[in-house]
């Protein structure tokens, strides 16, 4: 399934792109497995997602836990904890 992924803060910097559209393998079913898949995909992902416990996610504009399923998602945002205004 095609999925848009948006990156923010140092996740964006380490990925080198602000967003991308990916074709996910069927094995990637939730946020946690998406993060693992990105970390395994290439060197940028390995660096950006070296500490998955620091990653937060939103699915279609709503904050979600790392076990949230991706079925039906249009956009996933991945980012570090917010640091406020």
């Amino acid at each position: 399934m095609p999925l848009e992924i948006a990156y923010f803060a140092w996740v964006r910097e380490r990925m080198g792109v602000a967003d991308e559209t990916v074709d996910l393998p069927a094995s990637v079913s939730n946020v946690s497995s998406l993060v693992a898949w990105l970390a395994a995909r290439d060197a940028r992902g390995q660096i950006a997602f070296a500490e998955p416990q620091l990653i937060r996610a939103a699915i279609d504009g709503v904050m979600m836990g790392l076990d949230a399923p991706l079925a039906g998602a249009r956009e996933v945002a991945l980012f570090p904890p917010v640091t406020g205004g």
Partner: protein
Amino acid sequence: MIRVAVQPAAIDIAAELDLHDAGGHGASASFIGRVRGDGDLTELFLDHHPAMTGAGLADLAHAAADRWHLSALTLIHRVGAMVPGETIVFILASSPHRAEALAACEFLIDRLKTDVMLWKRESFADGRVQWVEPREGDNARADRWS
């Protein structure tokens, strides 16, 4: 009555005071947050999520308006690159009662630190660039309101 904005442009406080309709009477509490030049900071960059940051600010503003009796509320947040002395955030809450205006203003600044989709990156005179880590103290202050 409620005005919320997320903008890369400089925040014009005098203009915002004029726009804010305090109802002509009662109390207004405000908070102005500025970029600090500590440790030879040369630039503060605020990353944001175009849809979620605005929605988060609007949610906070409505939470304040539900909780306290406010006649008007202005909440303006700047994003992008700023230099020391520039205004990051301007909050202005008006109410017939001073305690409500003050509490709403304090609630909003505390929650802004933890609840809104914003990420800070600091650049220093010696070339260092670092993303700010979340602060425990901010979480403790924000938790007072839950």
